[in-house]
C-alpha cells in the first residue's frame, strides 16, 4: 500500500453500551481512538472488549450511545456501509473461495478496479504471492492470518479492527506476527483497534491500551504508564504481576509512611490515591523485578530503602532469571524475580532473606478492592 494516505479520523465512542436482556455486556463508555494510532482493548474473556469492537464494526447494535468516525455519526449504518474492516477471530475466511477471491471480495462488492493488480500488490505486502490459488484449508494458521489481514486492508478502511487475530497461533508464530502487524500498521498508517486477552501482546504492539473488566474500562494509557502506575488492583494484577501488601497509614508528607506486617514502608505521596489521612488503609504494591534479595546474614544496614524480612518458600529457575516466593509478615507469598547475573549463588528454599526496594518504585491502591482481582490462574511467566 504505497498510495493514498487514508482520509481517516478519530474513532469516538460516546456513552455507548450494550445490554442483552438483563445482562450488561458493556456499560456506557466514552472512548476516543486518535487517528493513526495502534489501540488495544485488553481484558479477560467476557469483559466486553469484543462487544465494543463489534459495535464499532456495526455487527452489534449499540443499546445506547453513538459511534462516530472522523466526526461523522455512523451509529445507524449497517456494517457494509461503514468504512471499517475487521480481522475476525479464527479469521472467517470464505472456505469456498481461493485466496485471491477472498482478498478481492471487498473490492468486487464496491466495484473498485483494477482488482487483479490490487490483489497481487496486497498479497505481496503480506508475502503470500505464491499462494493466490489455494483454498483457505490448504494454508497454515499463519498464512490464513495474513490472508485475513490482506482481505481487510485492501479496502483502505479508516479503521482496521482486529478481534484476537493471533489467538489461534502458537507462541513463536504469535511473536513474529506481532512484529509483522506492527510493521504493516506503521507502513499503512491506518488506525488499528486490536482486541486481545494477552497483556504482553497488547503492550508490545499498542501505543495506547485500554484495560477492560466487567464491561467497563478500568484504566487507559500508554503501556509503560499502565504498568508502572496501575490505579486498580485489577490492572496491577492483570498487567504483569504485583505484590500487594495491606498497610495502614502512619503519617503523610511528601512521603507517606505506612506500617505493614510489623515494619514500616515509605512511598511518594504522589503515588497514593488521595486522600491519605493517618490511620487510613492502603494496598501497597511493588513489582517483583524491582525487589532485590539478600541473605539476612550479610544484608547491608538500613540504606533508606523499604525493607521486609522473610523466608524463601519456593525457588524456580527460569534460565535468565530466578523466581522466588517469599513468606513474610507483610505477605504470605511475595514474588521476587532476580536476574541470574552470577554475582552470587541462587538462594535455596528455607533461606532467611531481606527484601529491599526503592520507595519511589512503590505504588499504592485504594484498600477497598479485591486484592485478587485480575490474577490469572495459569500465568504466562515472562
Amino acid at each position: 500500500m504505497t498510495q493514498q494516505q487514508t482520509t481517516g479520523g478519530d474513532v469516538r465512542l460516546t456513552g455507548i453500551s450494550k445490554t442483552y436482556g438483563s445482562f450488561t455486556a458493556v456499560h456506557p463508555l466514552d472512548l476516543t481512538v486518535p487517528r493513526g494510532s495502534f489501540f488495544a482493548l485488553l481484558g479477560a474473556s467476557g469483559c466486553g472488549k469484543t462487544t465494543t469492537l463489534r459495535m464499532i464494526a456495526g455487527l452489534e447494535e449499540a443499546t445506547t450511545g453513538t459511534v462516530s468516525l472522523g466526526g461523522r455519526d455512523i451509529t445507524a449504518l449497517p456494517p457494509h456501509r461503514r468504512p471499517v474492516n475487521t480481522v475476525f477471530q479464527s479469521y472467517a475466511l470464505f472456505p469456498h473461495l481461493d485466496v485471491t477471491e477472498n482478498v478481492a471480495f471487498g473490492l468486487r462488492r464496491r466495484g473498485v478496479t483494477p482488482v487483479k493488480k490490487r490483489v497481487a500488490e496486497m498479497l505481496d505486502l503480506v508475502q503470500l504471492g505464491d499462494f493466490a490459488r489455494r483454498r483457505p484449508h490448504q494454508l497454515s494458521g499463519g498464512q490464513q492470518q495474513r490472508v485475513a489481514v490482506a482481505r481487510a486492508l485492501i479496502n483502505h478502511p479508516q479503521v482496521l479492527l482486529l478481534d484476537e487475530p493471533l489467538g489461534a497461533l502458537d507462541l513463536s508464530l504469535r511473536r513474529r506476527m506481532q512484529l509483522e502487524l506492527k510493521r504493516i500498521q506503521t507502513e499503512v498508517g491506518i488506525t488499528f483497534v486490536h482486541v486481545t486477552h494477552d497483556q504482553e501482546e497488547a503492550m508490545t504492539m499498542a501505543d495506547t491500551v485500554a484495560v477492560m473488566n466487567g464491561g467497563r474500562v478500568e484504566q487507559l494509557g500508554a503501556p509503560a504508564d499502565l504498568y508502572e502506575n496501575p490505579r486498580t488492583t485489577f490492572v496491577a494484577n492483570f498487567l504483569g504481576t504485583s505484590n500487594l501488601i495491606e498497610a495502614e497509614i502512619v503519617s503523610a508528607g511528601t512521603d507517606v509512611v505506612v506500617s505493614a506486617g510489623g515494619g514500616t514502608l515509605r512511598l511518594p505521596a504522589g503515588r497514593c490515591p488521595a486522600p491519605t489521612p493517618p490511620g487510613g488503609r492502603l494496598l501497597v504494591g511493588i513489582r517483583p523485578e524491582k525487589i532485590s534479595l539478600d541473605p539476612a546474614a550479610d544484608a547491608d544496614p538500613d540504606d533508606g530503602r523499604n525493607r521486609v524480612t522473610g523466608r524463601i518458600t519456593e525457588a524456580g529457575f527460569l534460565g535468565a532469571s530466578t523466581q522466588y516466593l517469599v513468606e513474610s509478615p507483610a505477605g504470605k507469598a511475595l514474588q521476587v524475580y532476580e536476574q541470574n547475573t552470577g554475582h552470587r549463588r541462587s538462594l535455596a528454599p528455607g533461606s532467611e532473606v531481606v527484601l529491599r526496594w526503592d520507595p519511589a518504585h512503590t505504588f499504592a491502591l485504594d484498600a477497598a478492592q479485591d486484592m485478587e482481582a485480575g490474577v490469572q490462574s495459569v500465568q504466562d511467566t515472562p
Partner: protein
Amino acid sequence: MTRLLHALRRRLVVIAGLLTLAYLVLPNAVVMVFSFNRPNGRFNYTWQRFSLDAWKDPCGVADLCGSLSLSLRIAALATLGATVLGTMIAFALVRYRFRARGAVNSLIFLPMAMPEVVMAASLLTLFLNMGAELGFRTVLIAHIMFCLSFVVTAVKARVMSMDPRLEEAARDLYAGPAQTFLRVTLPIAAPGIAAGALLAFALSFDDFIITNFNAGSTVTFPMFVWGSAQRGTPVQINVIGTAMFAVAVAVVVVGQLVADRRKSRAEK
C-alpha cells in the same frame, strides 16, 4: 492364544460386515443378471438363457418408458418444491428465534415418524373430501409434503455447522444482505442443500405407497412395476433398474475422481 482370539475377533467384525454388504448388494446383482435373461412366459423369475433383446429395446413394453418419464418429471418438480420450501424453513429454524419454534419442529419431525400408509390414507381422505381429481397434481403435492422434512433435516445440519462469522465477514466487506446471501451463505450451504435435494429426488422417484393411494389412474414407474408383478414382469424393468444403478455409481465415482484431481492440482 489370546492374541489369536483377538485377531480372530477383529476379522469376525470384518467378515460379518462383508456378509451384510453381500446381502445388501445381492438383489442388485440378481436384477442385473436377469436383465440378460430371456424368460419363458410372462414372469422373469427363473433363468432360461442369455439374451440382449431387452437391452436393445428398453422401451419395448407398452407404457414402461411413459411411466419412467412421468416419474422423472414428478421427482424433478417435487425436488424443486421441497428443496426451496425446506431450505427456507431450515434457515428460519437455525438463524432466528421466534415463537412456536417447538411446534414447527414437531411439524417437521412428525411426517418422518409416520408410517407412509398413514400419510397416504389420510391425504387421500382429504382429496376425496375436497373432491380433488387424483392424478399428476395430487401425486406432486404428496411428494413435496413428505420430502420436505428430509430436506429441512439435511439443510439444517449444514447451516448449523456454518460459522456465523463468515456472514459477518461478508457484511463487513461491503456485501449487503442480498449479496451476503448469494455470495457466501448459499455457496457454503450448497452441499447441505444438494444432499437434501438428492434425497428428495430419490424418495420421490422411488415412492410407491403414497403414490399408490393418491395417483388415481396415473401410472408412475413404481406403480408400473407393481402392476407388472401381478400381470407379468418384462425384462425391461431389470434393464432400467440396472441402468439407473450403473449411472448412479458412475456419477459418484466420476465425482470422486474430479474432486481428487482438483484437490491435488490445487496443492501443486
